[in-house]
């Protein structure tokens, strides 16, 4: 049985830059990493395979250099990776990205589970996971923090039919039973990502990673890229920094008391509003 993980390559948090004209993230000349929250999706897939067997495939949509994200997943233990890349796909919003990724997943076929990260640290929407599920007409469990496959029987090569998950929501954990196939998005609590191994890295170098573009997928080109995307970024600006930190030194009884008084005052003002 097959698990597909959607992996996004993002600029390193410290060096993100935006093109103020087009409202897109500048990806050239900036250090690119696997979306940190996708590492938990990768680890989850690897652990499921270790326990229940099967195959794990990474897919990523992005410019040609996003291939390194897939190589890294293979170095961590993935069986293979597929890069989705085409100039026609550039500038896709979450609707169009979900559409293209869902078409790629359909083409791979025969999967039990699709795993996404909770959200990407650049766009920061968390919409692509549920979006993929909707295009595939599958149920989605978001914010998953724990996973089990209860009715797995090791004699059969099959995975069973349901997945038990816990989902972390505002006021607690919700336990769900999901019929397979389904899509899940995972939070950090689900696992601790492993590091790539040396052997894995060597294997990753040798593994050929196919690149799929417009001719390989059944996508309507009028629904992808900048022009096919429903949403449009019209303005980018830096939030005004109006904070002027008033710093007080608290080094002896008196200055500590003064500092504490000030804080208490802030707090009381807040209570009165």
């Amino acid at each position, binding site marked *: 049985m097959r698990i597909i993980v959607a992996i996004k390559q993002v600029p390193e*948090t410290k060096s*993100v830059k*935006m093109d103020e004209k087009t*409202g897109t993230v500048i990806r050239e000349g900036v250090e690119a990493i696997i979306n940190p929250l996708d590492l938990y999706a990768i680890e989850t897939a690897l652990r499921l395979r270790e326990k229940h067997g099967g195959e794990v495939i990474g897919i990523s949509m992005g410019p040609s250099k996003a291939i390194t994200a897939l190589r890294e997943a293979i170095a961590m233990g993935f069986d293979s990776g597929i890069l989705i890349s085409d100039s026609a796909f550039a500038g896709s*919003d979450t*609707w169009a990205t*979900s*559409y293209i990724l869902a078409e790629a997943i359909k083409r791979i076929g025969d999967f039990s589970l699709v795993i996404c990260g909770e959200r990407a*640290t*650049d*766009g*920061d*929407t*968390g*919409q*692509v996971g*549920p979006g993929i599920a*909707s295009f595939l007409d*599958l*149920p989605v469990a*978001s*914010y998953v*923090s724990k996973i089990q496959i209860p009715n797995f029987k090791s004699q059969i090569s099959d995975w069973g039919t349901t997945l*038990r998950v816990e989902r*972390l*929501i*505002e006021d*607690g954990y*919700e336990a*769900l039973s*999901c*019929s397979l196939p*389904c899509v899940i998005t995972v*939070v*950090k*609590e689900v696992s601790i990502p492993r590091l790539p191994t040396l052997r894995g890295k060597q294997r990753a170098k040798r593994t050929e990673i196919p690149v799929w573009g417009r001719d390989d997928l059944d996508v309507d080109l009028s629904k992808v890229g900048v022009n096919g995307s*429903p*949403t*449009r*970024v*019209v303005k*980018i*600006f830096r*939030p005004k920094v109006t*904070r*002027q*930190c008033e*710093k*007080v*030194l*608290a080094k002896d009884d008196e200055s*500590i008391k003064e*500092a*504490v*008084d000030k*804080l*208490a005052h*802030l707090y*009381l003002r807040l*209570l009165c509003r």
Partner: protein
Amino acid sequence: MAEQKDGRVQRISHELLSRGLELAEKRNCKLSAVIFGHSIKTNDLEELIERGADEVIAMEAAELEHFLVEPYAACMLKLIGQYRPEIIIAGATSTGRTLMPYVAVKAHAGLTADCTGLDIEKETNNLLQTRPAIGGNIMATIKTPKFRPQMSTVRPRSTKPAPRQRNRKGKIIRLVASKESLNSRIVRMDFIANEEEQSLGEADIVVVVGRGIKRAENIPLVRELADSLGAALGASRDVIDRGWLSYPHQVGLSGQTISPKLYIGIGVSGAIQHLAGMQTAEIIVAVNRDPNAQIFKVADFGIVGDLFEVLPVLTEHIKQTINNDR
């Protein structure tokens, strides 16, 4: 899209009405509150009208008691077909952030996540949706010129709840969900409530503890302060990774994004990944003994000192101030 829990309408619904009122006035159109659930309190539905809804559309069924993506999406799509709304806003909550993208795909609508500003563009009547991106370092304004409905999720606590006007009148429409729209391939088995009383995302005041606290045994010092302030307790990633507090407490890039009225950081350095989750707080206060700590760059008020000296005095003072107040 109003939200309910155990039949009670949640605060986010009133915040959405506050946003909706502004937009409806500018567009000169009707404002409807839609809610899915089971045995929702009638009083609470009336309150939605008192807080600004012209009509409340309540769909009820046992299967809608808790959020399940398929039945909720099916019901919503049905209503979209029937009412053809111009704009749909929902909370950027675990429910809204799952339901809205699922629906937006099927409705072929644009969806903007986690908005903190909504407005109407005068010339075109398009919805202008402003949201923080890249950890709050940049704000982006997004439009959906060619597609309808225009959809957004709105960051909880980014606006005040609409005030209640007792004499406001409106209609409550109760709809019965059709059988086929209630199918779900996901079954909710159980719910395990958090040990904390207040959830981080919903608290007005959050006290966040960082590595400066040195060891797990010292955490109660910070918890005591949080309790005395009626605040929720949060933590930086370092504290979580060391196992001193559980993951639901984590604030930041790989944890929760919070926008409380007051954030108090105790022994937090203010790494960029931490700032990504809290810099939209209204007032930021930090206690750190390093005068050059990054956290002071985003703070309104900074106490430069040893937290082990400051904390006991502070907690004691707050306890007394509150006792005096009552």
